[in-house]
């Protein structure tokens, strides 16, 4: 008879070969966990190779998920439960498992060959090296085959269902219902009855095995999280960006046009938007990154909301066109789903090292507004703000997310569309006196006249233009003036964006300044440090250019300023240059989110040195 234990929060990691379906398994666990009402945060962590050689260390694909009965902000530092489908998965992930953590291993995959591939000389399931952990060694492959004995398919095909068997074990262990996944199997494999049967049977068999055998003595329950009332769904960053763009387009009365080119980890934005033709979304898979952004600028010039989505290497190719949009003052949203760099770097891993690229990666004086999403769900709001400012200020806007936000998921309180304000930014109308570069004194933005508007025919280009008329001008003073105007225009954005998140006192020992996807880690670390009695303040920037006006005063009220980033120190240099303070960086550039406990230790060091 098993006993049931209440837990506040659990971190589970599914790991296996990149062909083992670990992303799918993790996503199913996530969907079910969302439906039972836990707060959650996920971290898919997979190799760039689609099917790396089976059994190898570099071919291990992982999916980590933290779920909780209270609000959480990270996918977890340390893993409580590790599902290892082969020796390589165990070897790669054991370092993340906490002391006395649970291992569920597929014993059948621990063959001599696989052990050798993973670099084990002896079988760790048998040699006692895993003492100190709770090891459940389960013959998952064999049990799956037995469960599917009546299903008419080859052993090889039956083995593909073994991830559902493993999922079934974890569902029992954490008292999850099977319905969400059973329904998903039916929809996913519609028209392939033998796959539906096999996967359902494997899932049920895994659940029953855990229930019936006396191997597992404990089930765990994690209560529903207390969250604000409303309707929720699970959402990833790439999904949230896509939905935010569709809503912004509709609210602005400008049809959405995405010009893009496939690149990891941004491609899902193209995939998602391509589905929504019935929302008047036009997606254009261009011949290259340059044509992607060029077509988006052309579409914006014609009156659409032009967007391009890419990652670092693609952004590098788009740079000249982004500068062109700065010069011509045409609205454009440039999404950079950052990944590890430089060059091809770590395509499937996360990083924040393209901040300088967004700030400075163009020839000439080419300032533009930059906003960074703080969580997967926040990508929705961030995309809408980026689109709004692009249209309002007739400028390209950089929207920075990253691999972690793009693929990571969390619950999202679905807003009521009627509550989302309109984006009413007028175009010039026929019959008006029109000067292409006449500016609104409040925003310094020009008004666009789009082709098709009678009497407002005019010419734009990348050559320096005369103030007001937009005619080509090589006049020295005019150029000086235009450079200043374009910079001031970006500064004016500060008056139209929400203030940054700030917590703590307005003066003190330590101010933390963070941006983008480190929000969750910093939130948890600040919470932890405060529990330890540290009095610290924290400002999280979503809009990074322009920097918030309040920061100029605030920053000088602190003895120390700490800027944690997943790069070698980029925002920290901007902060130092901008405010002349001795801000320090905290950086870990591993292609993974920062770890909460590391940051807590760093924070402590500022208090201990006093």
């Amino acid at each position: 008879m098993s006993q049931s234990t209440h837990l506040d929060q659990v971190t589970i990691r599914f790991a296996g070969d990149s062909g083992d379906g670990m992303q799918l398994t993790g996503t199913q666990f996530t969907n079910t966990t969302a439906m039972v009402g836990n707060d959650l945060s996920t971290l898919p962590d997979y190799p760039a190779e689609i099917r790396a050689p089976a059994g190898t260390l570099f071919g291990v694909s992982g999916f980590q998920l933290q779920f909780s009965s209270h609000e959480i902000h990270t996918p977890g530092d340390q893993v409580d439960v590790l599902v290892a489908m082969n020796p390589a998965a165990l070897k790669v992930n054991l370092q993340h498992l906490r002391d006395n953590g649970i291992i569920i291993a597929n014993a059948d995959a621990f063959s001599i060959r696989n052990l050798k591939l993973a670099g084990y000389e002896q079988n760790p399931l048998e040699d006692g090296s895993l003492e100190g952990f709770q090891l459940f060694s389960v013959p998952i492959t064999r049990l799956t085959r037995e469960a599917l004995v009546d299903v008419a398919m080859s052993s090889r095909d039956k083995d593909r269902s073994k991830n559902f068997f493993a999922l079934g074990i974890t569902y029992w262990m954490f008292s999850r219902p099977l319905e969400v996944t059973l329904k998903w199997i039916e929809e996913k494999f519609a028209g392939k009855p033998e796959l539906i049967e096999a996967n359902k049977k494997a899932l049920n068999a895994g659940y029953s095995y855990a229930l019936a055998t006396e191997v597992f003595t404990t089930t765990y329950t994690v209560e529903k999280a207390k969250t604000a009332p409303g309707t929720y769904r699970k959402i990833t960053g790439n999904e949230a960006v896509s939905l935010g763009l569709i809503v912004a387009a509709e609210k602005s009365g400008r049809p959405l046009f995405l010009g893009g080119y496939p690149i990891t980890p941004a491609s899902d934005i193209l995939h998602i938007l391509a589905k929504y033709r019935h929302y008047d979304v036009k997606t254009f898979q261009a011949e290259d990154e340059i044509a992607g952004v060029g077509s988006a600028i052309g579409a914006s010039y014609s009156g659409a909301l032009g967007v391009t989505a890419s990652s670092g290497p693609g952004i590098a190719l788009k740079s000249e066109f982004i500068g062109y949009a700065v010069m011509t003052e045409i609205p454009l949203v440039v999404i950079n789903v950052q990944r590890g760099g430089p060059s091809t770097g770590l395509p499937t891993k996360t990083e924040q090292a393209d901040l300088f690229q967004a700030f400075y990666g163009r020839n000439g004086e080419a300032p533009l507004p930059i906003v960074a999403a703080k969580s997967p769900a926040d990508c929705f709001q961030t995309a809408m703000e980026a689109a709004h400012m692009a249209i309002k200020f007739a400028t390209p806007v950089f929207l920075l997310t990253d691999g972690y936000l793009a693929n990571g998921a969390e619950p999202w309180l679905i807003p009521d569309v009627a509550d989302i304000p309109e984006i009413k930014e007028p175009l010039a109308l026929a019959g008006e006196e029109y000067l292409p570069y006449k500016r609104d004194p409040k925003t310094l933005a020009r008004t666009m006249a789009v082709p098709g508007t009678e009497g407002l025919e005019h010419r734009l280009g990348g050559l320096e233009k005369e103030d007001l008329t937009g005619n080509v001008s090589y006049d020295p003073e005019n150029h000086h003036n235009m450079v200043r105007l374009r910079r001031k225009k970006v500064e004016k954005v500060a008056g139209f964006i929400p203030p940054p998140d700030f917590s703590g006192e307005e003066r003190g020992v330590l101010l933390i300044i963070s941006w983008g996807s480190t929000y969750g880690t910093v939130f948890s670390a600040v919470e932890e440090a405060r529990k330890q009695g540290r009095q610290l303040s924290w400002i999280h920037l979503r809009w990074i250019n322009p920097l918030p006006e309040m920061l100029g005063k605030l920053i000088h009220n602190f003895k120390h300023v700490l800027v944690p980033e997943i790069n070698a120190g980029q925002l920290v240099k901007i902060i130092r240059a901008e405010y002349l303070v001795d801000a320090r960086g905290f950086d870990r550039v591993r292609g993974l989110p920062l770890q909460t406990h590391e940051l807590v230790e760093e924070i402590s060091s500022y208090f201990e040195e006093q």
Partner: protein
Amino acid sequence: MNTIETLEQKEKKYTKEDFTSDQEVRWCPGCGDYSILAQMRRLLPDLGVKKENVVFVSGIGCSSRFPYYMDTYGLHGIHGRAPALASGIKLANPDLTVFVITGDGDALSIGGNHFIHLCRRNIDVTVLLFNNRIYGLTKGQYSPTSERGKITKSSPYGSLEEPFNPVKMALAAGATFVARSMDRDPKHLEATLLEAARHKGTSFVEIYQNCNIFNDGAFEKYTNIKTRFDNVVYLKNEQEYRFGRENDKHLFWDGHRFRVEEWKATEKPLTHTTDNLPASMEFALAELSELEDFPVPVGVFRKRQAETYDALLTKQIEEVKKSKGQGDLQKLLESGNTWHVD
């Protein structure tokens, strides 16, 4: 554009002055670009579209200053990328009439990739390639259409490269309208550009254009009225491939290649067709401009009706709307598994 608008347009017909902007033209005196500009201003009133629906898009180079001189909408882009801008403009608003103005370096070197993909997609825009076989704006380097051995600043011992044949490229890339004309044959140029602009789909016109500063006389053989008729064969639909000052020669197709032969009135002549010339003949015809002892074909090589990308996109949107209904934002946000918290 619907029929009523077109009729109204005819009543208040434009003149070439309506298409002339207030900007001073800044090409070198004697440049072939002047002629192309003049023909464009002349033909637009005949095209029957409202001038606010016309957009000229260009890249970088001498030719790419063109949009500034037209009193229509205009976008002077970046080097080689005009097709990308033009694609976005046309797809976002298919009612517009879009021209791409480009040169041999712009279209075939830095912008080669965009050029071939524009042709392949058959987006309804008209491309004018001003071919002067030289980089003019950067002051005289060899271009992708310069002949091998060309002595320029960047090839003081002669260029080592075989030139591109722009017509062959456009045909191979799938442009549905492909033609060649010359700056110094204004009537032919005007008629060819008008036909190109009226064609639905990607229209491509290579224009032999003289750069009198850096590559003067590059096309003299074809453009000089004294030598033109012995060196140019004008392509006309349903007509023979006849040429020569006395109209005494023609191109004979022997089943594999063209040969130049004396014209004999008695034989059953081979005639040109723009919509279904066999690929072998189409390619052989395009290749003549590269061969010694052959006249250069000038006129329309290909004019083929095919669905345009822009029309297909519009159609696809309508079809998806028909099957799924007009999108509802609230439903979109609530798609997938949802749960409720009270």
